């Protein structure tokens, strides 16, 4: 951040305000205060049964965004959030003397960058600092958008990104074409939702006996062998120590950085973008799992099991194309599409189990093959004259899917919004349906009331459709059978009440 601060200082020292420019012209300030309370509406999607009616979230957030424009060639932006979580984290008496435990908070720096326009050449722009890039033409499901990983800390807002330090250079050689090149020195992974831990959780029955372990990405014969092995053990004799999932550091070498380029063409009713990305997939892929079984001294026949897994972020190259098209000849409907050909690094998954020092299981299977694969989104949107908006998309490959053992699914994503009373009240229904698995999806109804301009209240929620347990064939399930939205790792069914004031 020191280099950014220096750049900012230099910008101020060596650029003079434009003649006649007032302080008000130089500075723009905006932000919001938001309060969000969420209630759990299920008893079956947590680690343990129960939880209906519990508060899942009690969050207050202040956003401050400051833009500084010393002249029309220089701009600096700082966008920050102060987030209070609203639940005490005090577990021991000494915690109660720490404000951060009693009233925990986080500070987010979403953007902090310096931009210069017309540097070296009049048609060249530069942005350096902490930035968020949003590439792609479709809404939310953008396979060509890989520079910033997703921030899924809030399952109700999966459009957020993890900001990252980067250098962006944009060239505007003609009205019909824009060129952009971005370099991101250090890769940052996606922030996962709190429910993600459940993907690696070991479950027990009411008697405290082992019930279920995470399903590894292995072939069906390998899974059959694994099930046979565990089936020979007494489930009440296995005491799992809290599983550890280690994240392999992608590295900080120049070869581990990310780079991307795109060319956007404006062709009348059609906008087309060609893009290329070199970097890593932002979501973790299962890499290794090792279990160590150690006999318990205090309980003959019983054993402690230490389970350590590793996840990695596979390298990839992405060649992308996206378009938007306004079809005046078809009621003015809007069409948009995005296709990405992904060249992944191969990831082989290995699983080992030791009893004492004896290696009892040793399996390996390719989790992600190196074969290129395609992800794509195609959609349309349309507004009816009486205030009804409709957006429908076909998605091949969800944003966290990477052609691993789970595969790539097809989805139907639809959203409709109806506005009433001079846009003061809006009712929105959105849903995702997994066409591949057919019995799983999400449903999100939202009512937004703009009480007065700047002040809005929103009631929303999310409901996950699908069984939490995958279907079993021959008495067991494989990695690819996990219900896309039914599995517990997807999150809880919740209702949310939000209030926000914007300035």
């Amino acid at each position, binding site marked *: 951040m020191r280099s950014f601060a220096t750049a900012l200082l230099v910008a101020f020292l060596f650029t003079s305000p434009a003649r006649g420019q007032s302080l008000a012209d130089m500075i723009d300030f905006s932000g919001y205060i938001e309060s969000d309370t969420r209630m759990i509406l299920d008893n079956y999607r947590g680690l343990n049964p129960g939880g209906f009616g519990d508060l899942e979230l009690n969050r207050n957030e202040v956003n401050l965004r400051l833009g500084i424009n010393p002249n029309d060639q220089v701009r600096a932006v700082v966008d920050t959030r102060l987030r209070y979580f609203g639940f005490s984290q005090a577990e021991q008496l000494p915690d109660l003397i720490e404000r951060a435990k009693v009233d925990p908070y986080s500070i987010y720096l979403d953007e902090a960058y310096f931009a210069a326009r017309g540097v070296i050449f009049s048609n060249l722009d530069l942005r350096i600092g902490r930035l968020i890039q949003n590439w792609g033409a479709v809404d939310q499901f953008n396979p060509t958008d890989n520079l910033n990983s997703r921030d899924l800390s809030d399952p109700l807002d999966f459009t957020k990104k993890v900001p990252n330090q980067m250098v962006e250079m944009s060239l505007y050689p003609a009205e019909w074409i824009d060129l952009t090149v971005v370099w991101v020195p250090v890769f940052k992974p996606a922030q996962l939702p709190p429910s993600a831990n459940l993907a690696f959780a070991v479950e027990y029955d009411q008697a405290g006996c082992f019930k279920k372990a995470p399903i590894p990405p292995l072939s069906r014969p390998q899974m059959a062998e694994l099930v046979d092995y565990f089936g020979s053990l007494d489930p009440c004799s296995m005491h799992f120590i809290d599983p550890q999932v280690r994240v392999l550091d992608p590295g900080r070498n120049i070869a581990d950085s990310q780079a991307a380029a795109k060319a956007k063409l404006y062709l009348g009713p059609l906008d087309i973008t060609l893009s290329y990305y070199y970097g890593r997939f932002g979501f973790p892929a299962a890499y290794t799992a090792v279990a160590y079984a150690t006999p318990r001294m205090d309980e003959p026949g019983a054993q402690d099991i230490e389970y350590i897994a590793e996840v990695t972020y596979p390298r990839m190259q992405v060649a992308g194309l996206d378009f938007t098209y306004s079809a*005046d000849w078809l009621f003015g409907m809007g069409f948009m599409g995005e296709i990405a050909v992904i060249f992944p690094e191969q990831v082989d998954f290995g699983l080992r189990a030791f009893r004492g020092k004896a290696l009892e299981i040793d399996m390996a299977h390719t989790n992600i093959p190196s074969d290129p694969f395609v992800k794509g989104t195609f959609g349309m949107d349309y507004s009816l004259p009486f205030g009804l908006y409709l957006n429908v998309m076909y998605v091949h490959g969800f944003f966290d899917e990477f052609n691993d053992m789970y595969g790539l699914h097809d989805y139907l994503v639809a959203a409709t919004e109806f506005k009433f009373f001079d846009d003061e009240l809006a009712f929105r229904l959105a849903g995702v349906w997994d066409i591949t698995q057919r019995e799983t999806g999400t449903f999100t109804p939202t009512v937004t009331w703009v009480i007065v301009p700047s002040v809005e209240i929103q009631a929303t929620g999310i409901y996950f459709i699908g069984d939490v347990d995958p279907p079993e064939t021959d008495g067991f399930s494989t990695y690819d059978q996990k219900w896309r939205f039914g599995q517990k790792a997807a999150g809880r069914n919740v209702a949310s009440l939000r209030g926000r004031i914007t300035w």
Partner: protein
Amino acid sequence: MRLALSLSLLLALSMAGTVTTSAQEKLSAIQILERMDTKINGNEDQDMDVTLTVIDTDGSEKSYDFNIKQKGNDKRLIRFNSGELKNMSILTMNQDQVYIYLPGYKKVRRVASHNMSQSFVGSDFTNADMATASFLEVYDPVLEKEDEAFWYLRLTPKPGKDTGYASLLTKVGKKDFLQWQSDFFDEKGTHVKRFAASQPKLFPGTTAEWHSHIELSDPRTGHKTTMKVNALKLNQGLKKSMFTTRYLQWAK
């Protein structure tokens, strides 16, 4: 559904001090409309701060402040300065190429033309109204009547132009070639909308008075929207590059 009353009508401006055309001048309906178009879009560029107030039938009001920059008669940039839409920007590069910057998503998105028929922030204006429109490109005019001060033009959409209205009766000032009032009629002949301009004002830096108040109302319901021009600058030398997606990215 382009009303063609367009926000350009905000600039339907009473430049009373510079009027040279005499009422006696015999002009055809097309010439009158042409002169009106020229008057509206005749400046190199325009930059104005506006307050839009939506007044519901029960008298309740809501207001939004925004800035409008325009170059020529086809490029326009609107940026919201207040309300829940603050920092949202709408760029019209031409009638068929509209982009919106959504601050919540930090993304520039192209808007398909279906969206142009939607209400602009719940007001009586549509998004198409907020884009630039030339009357002569959209309407065929017929001189229906005239009096000492005004011409009354009956405007009907040109073949293939879907304006959402069957006709307009537009009152054009003989001294200033400005659109003082327009009544909009649907296919059944029902009077569905009225545009009225008033309160001429001399803004600092300008050489003639401009209407500072526009009202668009629905005579059937009483619902109306007013626009108040708080500040106006003309011919500031706004660069063409300001009306590009590059600028939307820059100013975000």
